């Protein structure tokens, strides 16, 4: 259902529901805003980050009815509708006293991407993901909860990118038409000592993406042009069954959860694509290529996971967790390619080739972790070991050699925590992993990680928190010569008044990251790929209310001084509220963003956004 219809539907439901319930026990809130924005700089860059626009915004729509009649609860929760926000969501819930409930969820997120200064500049995205979920939950019979749900995901919109042909790149557009729908039956026990859940779902996936010639000039100055591009390719998976079983138990001295999953997916691809190029604008001739394909892929996955926790007496806790995944994929494709060069006089030369190809992709993952913890009166220490194994066996194409690698890993962790009641708690943890063999050359041979967290409540509403982590990973020079160090750390200080009417705080974060990897350039030369971040973020925030006036806001400054791609950015928000009579609130909003790339300025922007909002709580 298009978004406007959804919004009208919501309002209609609200009005229809509000009328008979007006004299009943219902409450809620509704608030809307209108926002204007001034963009100085690259608006597409701003949209790629925030995707905000001018217009109306539904800030909040909540409606809640609770009663003792046939309907025990009716709830609507919606936000984001309007042109101003790229995301919107609505939930409707109906609970019947007879022991069943109905839920309907909707959300939509718009994605935009178009950066002139990026090396992804030749790609532009403008699409939406829309999700619907409806569920009927029957819990009239206390021992068993039964739910039947339907979920649908649609992706629609356009991607513009380049197409490689005639030794040049040509811009094309792709109309996206991707859908997924899924029906699930879920049974969950509620009164047995061991809680059992069984889920059975059936899903279908379909992609009918259609390319089109945008009519723009070729990138690179080629005088030829893409005359036409078309496709009738359909990719679909019908009836993908997934079965999941979960058993969980929680008792005084034992907690455990085990889950099993099995999924089988079969993909079918059929259809043809054609491209034609006008050489010399068509005066010299045309080149046409038709690519018909019939492809298939099958993937079976079995997965199991278990987590167990044992209390061994008053002080000791033993935790065991493990999981195992076994997946196998087989694919095949048969193509028939036709290439034709035609002169304007009518003669042509045609080449026709066909090929069969097949591939396999199998993997087995296993992982186990054991920790033992001793708990004192206000402190604890723990330690444990980790073991993992990943076996990958693939043959990407019949043109490639089979690839079979098993990568094993072992590791350990040590930690300590001190928790002095409400005042302070501290956690210190160190873990290390050692691995052999490499599925990909950039995988580490060793990983060391140390983490420190301190939280304090200083009294009088003050809090001071510190945290830091250091992660280091390496692999040998004869693999990739990888050397990665990451050090995020930060401090946060805040104060909240006793009644919660005022607060102020500051967060300071620093993130240093450097990775240095040996690479082989296409020319055959050896080089290093070095990526470095030196990010600092400072956020000041607060809110207060005095009488009928309220103010809330935040201001964030972000700077990256790393050598790779230094950036400075600001964002701030301020909301002034006047609390009027009849639970009405009138607000003025100001929002600000700036983004400044040090090396280039094509994607820089400064955006001021402001608006007025009215909210009513009832």
């Amino acid at each position, binding site marked *: 259902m298009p978004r406007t219809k959804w919004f009208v539907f919501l309002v209609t439901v609200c009005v229809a529901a509000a009328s008979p319930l007006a004299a009943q026990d219902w409450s809620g809130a509704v608030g809307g805003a209108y926002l204007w924005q001034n963009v100085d700089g690259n608006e597409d860059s701003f949209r790629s980050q925030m995707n905000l626009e001018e217009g109306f915004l539904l800030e909040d729509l909540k409606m809640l009815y609770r009663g003792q009649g046939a309907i025990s609860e009716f709830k609507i929760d919606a936000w984001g509708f309007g042109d101003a926000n790229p995301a919107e969501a609505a939930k409707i819930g109906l609970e019947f006293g007879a022991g069943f409930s109905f839920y309907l969820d909707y959300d939509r997120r718009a994605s935009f991407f178009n950066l002139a200064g990026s090396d992804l500049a030749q790609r532009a995205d403008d699409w939406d993901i829309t999700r619907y979920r409806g569920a009927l939950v029957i819990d009239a*019979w206390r021992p068993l909860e039964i739910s039947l749900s339907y979920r649908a995901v649609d*992706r629609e919109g356009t991607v513009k990118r380049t197409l490689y042909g005639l030794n040049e790149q040509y811009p094309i557009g792709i109309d996206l038409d991707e859908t997924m729908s899924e029906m699930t039956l879920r049974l969950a026990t509620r*009164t047995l000592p061991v809680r059992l859940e069984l889920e059975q779902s059936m899903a279908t996936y379909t992609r009918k993406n259609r390319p089109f010639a945008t009519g723009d000039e070729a990138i690179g100055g080629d005088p030829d042009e893409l005359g036409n591009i078309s496709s009738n390719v359909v990719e679909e998976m019908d009836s993908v069954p997934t079965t999941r079983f979960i058993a969980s138990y929680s008792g005084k001295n034992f907690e455990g959860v085990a889950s099993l999953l099995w999924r089988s997916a079969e993909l079918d691809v059929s259809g043809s694509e054609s491209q034609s190029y006008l050489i010399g604008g068509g005066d010299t001739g045309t080149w046409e290529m038709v690519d018909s394909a019939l492809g298939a892929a099958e*993937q079976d996955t079995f997965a199991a996971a278990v987590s167990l926790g044992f209390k061994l007496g008053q002080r000791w806790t033993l935790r065991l967790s493990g999981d195992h995944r076994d997946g196998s994929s087989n694919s095949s494709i048969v193509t028939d390619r036709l290439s034709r060069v035609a002169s304007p006089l009518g003669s042509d030369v045609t080449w026709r080739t066909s090929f069969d190809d097949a591939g396999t992709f199998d993997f087995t993952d296993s992982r186990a972790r054991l920790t033992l913890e001793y708990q004192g009166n206000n402190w604890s220490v723990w330690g444990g070991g980790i073991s993992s194994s990943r076996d990958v066996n693939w043959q*990407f194409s019949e043109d490639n050699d089979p690839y079979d690698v098993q990568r094993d890993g072992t590791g350990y962790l040590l930690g300590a925590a001190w928790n002095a009641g409400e005042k302070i708690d501290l*956690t210190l943890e160190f873990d290390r992993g050692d691995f052999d063999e490499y599925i990909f050359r950039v995988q580490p041979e060793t990983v060391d990680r140390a983490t420190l*967290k301190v939280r304090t409540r200083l009294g009088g509403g003050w809090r001071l928190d510190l945290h830091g982590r250091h992660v280091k990973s390496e692999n040998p020079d004869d693999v990739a010569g990888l050397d990665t160090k990451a050090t995020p750390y930060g401090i946060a200080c805040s104060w909240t008044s006793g009644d919660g009417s005022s607060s102020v705080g500051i967060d300071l974060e620093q993130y240093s990251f450097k990775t240095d990897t040996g690479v082989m350039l296409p020319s055959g030369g050896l080089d290093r790929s070095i990526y470095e971040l030196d990010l600092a973020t400072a956020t000041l925030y607060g809110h207060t209310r005095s009488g009928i006036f309220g103010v809330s806001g935040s201001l964030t400054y972000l700077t990256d001084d790393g050598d790779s791609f230094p950036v400075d950015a600001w964002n701030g928000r301020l909301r002034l509220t006047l609390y009027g009579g009849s639970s009405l609130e009138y607000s003025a909003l100001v929002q600000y963003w700036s*983004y400044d790339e040090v090396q280039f300025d094509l994607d820089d922007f400064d955006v001021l956004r402001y608006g007025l909002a009215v909210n009513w709580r009832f």
Partner: protein
Amino acid sequence: MTRHLFLAVAAALALASVAVAQEPVTMETCEMCHDDVAPVFAAGPHGRAMAMVDTAILDRSCVGCHGPATEHIDDPTTENINRVPAPGACLSCHPGQEGMTDISTPAHVRNGVACLDCHGTGHSELKTDHMLTSAPHKLCAECHLSESGSFQMPYAHRDGTRPFECTNCHSLHGDNRQGRLAMIGSGGVCLDCHTEKTGPFVYPHPPQQVNGCINCHVPHGSPNPKMLTRHRVAALCLECHTNVPSFHDVSRPRYQSCQNCHAAIHGSNRDSRLFEE
């Protein structure tokens, strides 16, 4: 008849699990003094959920959380009653997946993070899901500062000016895997929304199949477009691909972003070189 039998057994089990089952004080007794609290609780989501199971649970809910109250009734001071529910009080009724924090998030347990640090008691009107006292991103940010801060990056998961909720991807209780797809492979939780990348593909991109989305993307936020782990796309690709044919002249703009040609980076159903999406 069977239904009533099961209801009776369920109610009996629930009542038996309340540690103070022998306590004679009911909500009616408490309401004699706390007439501003008890009716609000009974009408709220917690009270109604109790009543749906059995009204007897609601009747005994005050002592269920606050402990024995006989002495308090004789001498109503704050010294002889648990003003804040005793540790374990919540789990006496929520022993299942909701209570499995000791194995799924032991750090919460170690640091004294308890149920009521995130969830309300039901005494005040909470319109949030799961009776949370605030939006999930605010609750999590109180401790997970670094993760919260990463959503301030230029490119991040966000819902416009509204923060992206942690619970969209993370689950705290019990089975710590959000969805069915999460069990299929690494990055599965991403595929709950980005279903078009689920596969299988005729020609998959192995890193996605083996390591998942985080092989190339930063899940919370990144200074790089598309939330990639590197600013230069070619750098990301060349760190793995060591046998790129020599005609790829990386000094030319065309070859600086591999995706210009190898557009089907998540997998192709047409071309082994991942040319076509």
